[in-house]
């Protein structure tokens, strides 16, 4: 016998659109009510146009499962969360939820600026669905987590935004529902705060709770969620292992893909000397690879047409992480064409990024071609291609058995040497030394 935590069957949500003003007025309502014969004359007051934000969405979630939900803006993610958290009702279908549901669609909902930190903890806790006794029990833990002890009795309108976020997340993090629904909460706040949130999410996932996690943070999805649901235009497009789903999403949804081609030489990126024809991310077999495993090498490939003889062209690739910071820049030096003038023609240059170099996450590749002395940049296509590096918990990668967040743009698998000097059997046991202190 198995019990599902979430069972969604054919759920759909239809919204009225077109009505420029979201609130109807009495006059209209009255006209609608009493003016049925008039309506034929007025002819414009037909049923308002509608749009299905979600259509026929079905899925099951087992207790303890952690499921990521991804999709472009407008794909229906937020609507799905609103339905699951009961904020709005579905137009069709049925959802069955087993256990207490805690929804975090926004951090700090219901906080009142005039009230003190202490008062807001109680108020916000109650709004999120905690009982008074429960809040009292967790109060100290919440305060400790938020690190705002000193300002507990200050109205939160005097808080810095960082303090506000910490306090708000602290309350939410101590809600202990069986089913936790989390929206892009992590998109706000500084890097340190985001890290704390992710760490807390991981804790939650280890406690055997069911988590639905909606985000644009692809590394977080692939690491936290074994399974991901991809929504597209209100329907479930893919539902499966995160690595595959995220890969497919990156290929289809981001606008930046693992492979791009410019077919018209006149408009392709570049100038009269050289133009870019294509950029690709490929695996060892030469296949276009939107997703690569952290331990496998990956080829960053550019294809370009040299239009003028006699230039010492220097192709270079800039690899940036999701935040837009450079992981590295690689310049073509190890090649027979290094420091040589190139005749006209078509070239393909491939840079091999070894396995166990980049950290997990999404990387964007800028493709550039320059000449030196004087320095001239002929091609610089920002975000020409993108790819996803995924890690796993096999224990074979640089992450070892650690399941948490690892900062850094690189994650090399380094050679470690550890020397061991056996203890002198005659020496005092360590336990005895500790006992003395």
């Amino acid at each position, binding site marked *: 016998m198995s019990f599902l935590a979430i069972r969604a069957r054919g759920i759909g949500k239809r919204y009225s659109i077109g009505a420029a003003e979201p609130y109807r007025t009495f006059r209209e309502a009255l006209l609608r009510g009493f003016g049925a014969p008039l309506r034929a004359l007025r002819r414009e007051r037909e049923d308002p146009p509608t749009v299905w934000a979600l259509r026929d969405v079905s899925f099951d979630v087992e207790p303890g499962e952690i499921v990521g939900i991804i999709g472009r803006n407008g794909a229906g993610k937020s609507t799905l969360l609103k339905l699951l958290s009961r904020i709005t009702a579905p137009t069709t279908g049925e959802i*069955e*939820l087993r*256990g207490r549901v805690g929804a975090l669609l926004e951090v700090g909902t219901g906080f009142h600026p005039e009230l003190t930190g202490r008062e807001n903890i*109680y108020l916000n806790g*109650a*709004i999120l669905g905690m*009982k008074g006794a429960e809040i009292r029990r967790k109060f100290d833990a919440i305060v400790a987590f938020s690190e705002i002890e000193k300002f507990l009795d200050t109205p939160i309108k005097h808080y810095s935004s960082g303090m506000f976020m910490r306090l708000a997340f602290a309350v939410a993090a101590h809600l202990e529902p069986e089913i936790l629904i989390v929206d892009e909460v992590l998109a706000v706040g500084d890097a340190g705060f985001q890290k704390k949130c992710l760490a807390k999410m991981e804790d939650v996932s280890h406690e055997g709770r069911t988590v639905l996690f909606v985000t644009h943070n692809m590394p977080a999805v692939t690491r936290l969620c074994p399974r991901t649901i991809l929504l597209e235009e209100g329907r479930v497009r893919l539902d499966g292992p995160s690595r595959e789903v995220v890969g497919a999403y990156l290929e289809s949804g981001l606008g930046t893909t693992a492979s791009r081609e410019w077919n018209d030489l006149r408009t392709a990126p570049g100038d009269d000397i050289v133009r870019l024809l294509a950029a690709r991310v490929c695996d060892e077999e030469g296949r276009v690879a939107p997703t690569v495993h952290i331990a496998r090498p990956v080829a960053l490939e550019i294809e370009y047409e040299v239009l003028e003889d006699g230039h010492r062209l220097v192709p270079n690739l800039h690899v940036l992480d999701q935040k837009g910071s450079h992981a590295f820049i690689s310049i073509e030096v190890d090649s027979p064409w290094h420091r040589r003038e190139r005749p006209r023609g078509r070239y393909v240059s491939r840079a091999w990024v070894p396995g166990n170099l980049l950290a997990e996450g999404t990387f964007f590749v800028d493709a550039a071609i320059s000449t030196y002395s004087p320095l001239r940049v002929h091609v610089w296509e920002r975000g020409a291609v993108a790819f996803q590096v995924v890690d796993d918990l096999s224990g074979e990668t640089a992450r070892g058995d650690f399941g948490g967040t690892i900062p850094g743009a690189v994650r090399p698998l380094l050679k470690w040497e550890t020397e061991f000097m056996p203890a002198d059997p005659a020496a005092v046991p360590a336990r005895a030394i500790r006992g003395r202190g």
Partner: protein
Amino acid sequence: MSEKAVATASPEDLPILYIRPSSMSLSAALGELWAHRELLAFFAWRDLKVRYKQTALGVAWALLQPLFMMIVFSVFFGNLAKVSSDGLPYPIFAYCGLLPWQLFAYALTNAANSLVSNERLVTKVYFSRVTLPISSVLAGLVDFAIAFALLLVLMAYYGCAPSGGIVALPFFLLLAVGAAMAAGLGLSALNVRYRDIRYALPFLTQVWLFVTPIAYPSSLVPEGWRTLYALNPMVSVVDGFRWALLGAPSPGATTVAASTLVAAAGLLASMRYFLRVERGFADVV
């Protein structure tokens, strides 16, 4: 909702929640309201706390409002217009009517605006929606209690003794609250859809004030109109208060019965309407 429901509880013990397109039944809604009773208190507490923190006079407003109204009424209706006050000193006659009226008007206005002014909450968290308008009524009760203390002082000053009807006072208080909720619940839900309500409210309460015997006794109303008049539950409430506290003529069983019936029917209809449109609030607000 079990308090100790934790992740380790075996799945078959966990409560199951069904989310369907249909709206909630009245009994389910009341059950949920009961489960959220602490939240109800928290909302009322928040409204009071914020109001007292933001205003310079704070709690004093609960006293000043009926007091000034009493003075204005006494000067214009009592002294200048010489409106009858059933043999009672006009100031206490007016104050005793203003007391439940202020509760009613405060509760009605705040309840009607509660969903719109808590828009962010409504669109971001789920909780029993009726807690918002109902908590406004609760907050009104606190002001009422403060203003009531002043009535006791006035009664001692004018030497008015309560009649045996004092035992019925809680009933009239309940009737005032019921009437405020009947109107407030429905209007709060309407307000989400039609923002006209916000502007119609001051007008509505003003008209309602005149069709309630606050500045004048209901004995001024012609006999033939009394039944129609009694359909306003606040008629019974105000007359009931004066009868119970000041020994004025009793409002009469028929009037009270009619008022109670109207308030109860209104509350039921209001609640039904609220539940019917409740699930779409987040889409419209």
